[in-house]
């Protein structure tokens, strides 16, 4: 028996009011490679905003971003961030 770690990804595309930002949850799953029994699962999260560099993301996350982030969405998000108040 050996323990192996596998990763699974869940993506959440926020509504257009949130500029289709993509929330990514990576599940780090430790399992027995022989029986497949899951021994432990932990989560790690990050958020991708339209226009972000996604070259380091896995293919399935890149596909979601590329589908959600049209040129109009990216332009709208960039205009929004530029207009954000710079101080609290």
């Amino acid at each position, binding site marked *: 028996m050996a323990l192996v770690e596998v990763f699974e990804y869940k993506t959440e595309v926020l509504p257009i009011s949130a500029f289709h930002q993509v929330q990514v949850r990576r599940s780090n799953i430790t399992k027995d490679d022989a029986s497949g029994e899951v021994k432990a699962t932990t989560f790690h999260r990050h958020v991708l905003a339209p226009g972000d560099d996604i070259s380091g993301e896995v293919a399935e996350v890149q596909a979601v971003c590329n589908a959600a982030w049209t040129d109009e969405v990216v332009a709208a998000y960039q205009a929004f961030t530029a207009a954000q108040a710079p101080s*609290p």
Partner: protein
Amino acid sequence: MSGFNTLADTIPIDFSGQSGATAAGMTAEQLDHYETGAWTPALTGVTSITYSTQVGLYTRIGNIVEVKFRIISTFTQSTILTMSGLPFASGDSGFAIPVSYQNCESGVVPTFYSGSSSASGNFYELNAAGGNWVPPSTGGTPLYLVGGGTYTVQDV
């Protein structure tokens, strides 16, 4: 996993039968999300940064997420210090998180502030001068940044 009740993610816990008066302004009585995990805080606006610790934890209950972070780093120069990597995008209002620090300027109380629909934000000074926090070079001694707070997230 045995020993746990599993709720389908489409079925929230409904509290509409609870006792007591309903508060004015109430908008929901269903709990549809619980999750805990990790995130990776990253500083930007700095030059030649080296991390020795870069840890973030979160717990989300409904549309509220509590985050904690701890960063130990050295850097040679900073402009406006920002932090990215939050686990969820913020909701329609911004939020602020108090931050503790060690080995930096005296008389500065930094606060992390994020605007709406964002997973990053800037550090500000809470002192008479106010404004963006631009810490000096850490030299050879690491800067410790520790903070935590809650914010409202976007509904998916």
